[in-house]
C-alpha cells in the first residue's frame, strides 16, 4: 500500500477532527464561529483564485452570493426542498457568470473591475423593485424568509459549510498543480505573451470565473440556510466583496495558505466588532487601507519572506523521510 504524503495525512486529520466537532459536544457558539469562518474561507479562496492567480480583480462576488441565495429562497417558496434549492442557487450563479462572461472579458484591467462592480449594484436595484414570487415581507422589494429550514440542526449546517470550505481549498490545490494553474499564472503575469504561447485567454478566464461563481454561490446559499432571511440590501451587500477581499489582502494574495489565515482573522474581527454596528465596518475599512499600504504581501507573504516556514518545513521533511523509509 502506498503511504500517502505527510501533508495529505495532516490535512485529512484536520478535516476529520473538524467534522467531529458537532458530535463530540463542542459548544454551539464555537460551531457558529466556525460556520462563518468556513463560509468566509470559501469566498476568500475563490477571490484569491480570481485576483491572486488569474489577475482578475472581480468586484461582483455579491452578485453570485445574492443570486444563489435568492434562487434558493424562492425555491423554498415554491415548495422545493432546500437541498434542491441549494443546487438551483449554484446553477443560477454559474449561469449568470456564463451570461456576463462574454461582455465582461472584453473589458481589460480597470474596466473589468468597474464592469463587475456594476452588476451587484444593478441587481440590488432590480430586486428592490421586483417581486418574483409573491412576497414574504410587506413593502417594496423582494424580501423572503427561507422556508423549510427550521428543522435543520446547527451541526448539519456546520457540515455543509465545512464541506464547501474544504472543497474550495481542494479545488484550488488541484488547479495549481494542473495545467490550468500554469496557464492562469501565465495570464496573470503577461496576458499577451500567454496568448502567443498558445493559451486561450478567454477560455481560461472563463474557467476560473465559473468555478468561483459556483463555489461562491454554494457558500452564499448555505449562508442563507443558516440566516434564513434575504433582502436586496443583504443579498447584494458590499460585505460580500469586502470579506473575501480583506481576507485575501490580509492573508496574502496569490499564496495558497493566504485565504486561510485571512479568513480566520476576518472572522475573528467580525465577531469581535459585532456589537458596534457601523463602527465595525469603519474599523475594517481602516484595517484594509493600513494593511494594503504597510503589508501588501499579507501575513503569509510576510511569513515566507522571513523564512518562518523553513524550520517547520525541515521538521516536516525529516518526519516524512522517516515514514517513507520504514
Amino acid at each position: 500500500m502506498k503511504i500517502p504524503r505527510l501533508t495529505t495525512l495532516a490535512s485529512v486529520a484536520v478535516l476529520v477532527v473538524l467534522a467531529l466537532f458537532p458530535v463530540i459536544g463542542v459548544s454551539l457558539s464555537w460551531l457558529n464561529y466556525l460556520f462563518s469562518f468556513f463560509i468566509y474561507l470559501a469566498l476568500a479562496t475563490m477571490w484569491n483564485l480570481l485576483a491572486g492567480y488569474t489577475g482578475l480583480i472581480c468586484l461582483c462576488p455579491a452578485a453570485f452570493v445574492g443570486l444563489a441565495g435568492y434562487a434558493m429562497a424562492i425555491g423554498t417558496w415554491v415548495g422545493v426542498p432546500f437541498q434542491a434549492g441549494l443546487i438551483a442557487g449554484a446553477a443560477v450563479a454559474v449561469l449568470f457568470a456564463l451570461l456576463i462572461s462574454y461582455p465582461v472579458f472584453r473589458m481589460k484591467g480597470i474596466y473589468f473591475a468597474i464592469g463587475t462592480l456594476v452588476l451587484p449594484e444593478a441587481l440590488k436595484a432590480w430586486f428592490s423593485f421586483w417581486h418574483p414570487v409573491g412576497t414574504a415581507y410587506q413593502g417594496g422589494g423582494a424580501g423572503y424568509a427561507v422556508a423549510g429550514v427550521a428543522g435543520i440542526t446547527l451541526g448539519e449546517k456546520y457540515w455543509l459549510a465545512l464541506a464547501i470550505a474544504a472543497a474550495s481549498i481542494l479545488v484550488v490545490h488541484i488547479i495549481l498543480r494542473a495545467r490550468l494553474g500554469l496557464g492562469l499564472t501565465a495570464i496573470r503575469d503577461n496576458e499577451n505573451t500567454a496568448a502567443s504561447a498558445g493559451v486561450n485567454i478567454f477560455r481560461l478566464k472563463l474557467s476560473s470565473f465559473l468555478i468561483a461563481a459556483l463555489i461562491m454561490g454554494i457558500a452564499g446559499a448555505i449562508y442563507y440556510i443558516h440566516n434564513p432571511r434575504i433582502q436586496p440590501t443583504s443579498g447584494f451587500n458590499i460585505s460580500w466583496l469586502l470579506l473575501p477581499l480583506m481576507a485575501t489582502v490580509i492573508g496574502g494574495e496569490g499564496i495558497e495558505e493566504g485565504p486561510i489565515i485571512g479568513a480566520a482573522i476576518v472572522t475573528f474581527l467580525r465577531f469581535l466588532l459585532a456589537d458596534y454596528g457601523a463602527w465595525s465596518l469603519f474599523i475594517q475599512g481602516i484595517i484594509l487601507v493600513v494593511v494594503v499600504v504597510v503589508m501588501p504581501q499579507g501575513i503569509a507573504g510576510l511569513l515566507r519572506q522571513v523564512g518562518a516556514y523553513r524550520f517547520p518545513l525541515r521538521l516536516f521533511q525529516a518526519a516524512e523521510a522517516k515514514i517513507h523509509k520504514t
Partner: protein
Amino acid sequence: MEDFLVGLAPPLIKGILLGGLYVVIALGLSLVFGVMKLINVAHGDLVILGSYFAWAIMGWLGIDPFLSLVVGVPLFFAFGFLVQKFIINRTFRISLDAALIACFGISIVVQSLCQVIWTPFNRSLLTDYRLLTFAVGPLTIQLRYLLDFIGGLAVMLAVREFLRRTYLGRAISAASQNEPVAERMGINPNRVYSFAFAIAMACAAVAGVLQGLTFSFSPTSGSPFLIISFGVIILGGLGSMAGTFIGGMVFGLTQTLGAYFSGGSLLVQSIAPYLLVFVILSVRPQGIFGR
C-alpha cells in the same frame, strides 16, 4: 404628435440640466483617472460626504450650503492632498491593484463614517429656494436643476482654465499625457498627483452641495454616482471636456427619459444608467470621443 413633443419637453430639459450635476460629480473622477490611471472607487462616497458636510454646517450654523463651501472646499482640498500623499502614492509603489484596493478601503471608511455620524436615514439640503420653480414660456423649470447645469458649466470651465493657465495646471496636464517626459522636465509626479487628487476632492465638495440640493441622500448613495461618473467619463472620452459634458447629458437624459417612457418606474430609472455603463464598457471603453 404635438402633444407627444410637448410632453417630451420637460423630461428632455430636466435631463439636460441634470447632466450638469453629473458633469460636476464626474469631473473629480476624470481628473484622477486622467492623471494617475486610477479609478477612485471612493469618489461617489466622497461626494456624498460633501453633501453631509454641507448638511452639517447648515444645521449647525444655519448658513446656505453654497456659503459652506468657503470652508468645505479648502477642507476637502487639504483632505484630498493628505490622502493622496500618505496613502495612495504609497500604494502606487506596490501596484495599481493595491491602489484600487486602498480606494475601496477608503470607500468603506467614508460610508461607515457617514452612517455612524449621521445615521442611515435619508437627508436633504433643505434650503428655502430648493423647491422653487419658474416658467420659461410654456415650460416649467426647477431652480435646483438649473443650478446643477450652471454649476456644471462653471466648475468645468474653471477647471479647464486652471489646467491651461496655471503652472500647476499645465504640470497636471503634462503628467496625464506623458509621465516620463514630464518627469524629465522636472515635474515631481507624486506632487502632481497630490494636487490633482486635492482638486478632485474640492470638486467633490461642490458636487456634494449640488447633489444634496437635487436629491436626498444616505450613506450608501455614493455607489450609483460612482458608476454614473465612470459612465460619463468613458462615454465622453478621457481628456475631452466637451465629451464629458455630453456624457453627463446622456446620463441625465437616460434617467429622465427612462422615467418618462416607463411611466415613472423607479426600477427603470435605477437600472437604466447601470445598463448603459455596462454596454459602453463591453462595446467601446475608450468612449465616443476618446483617443
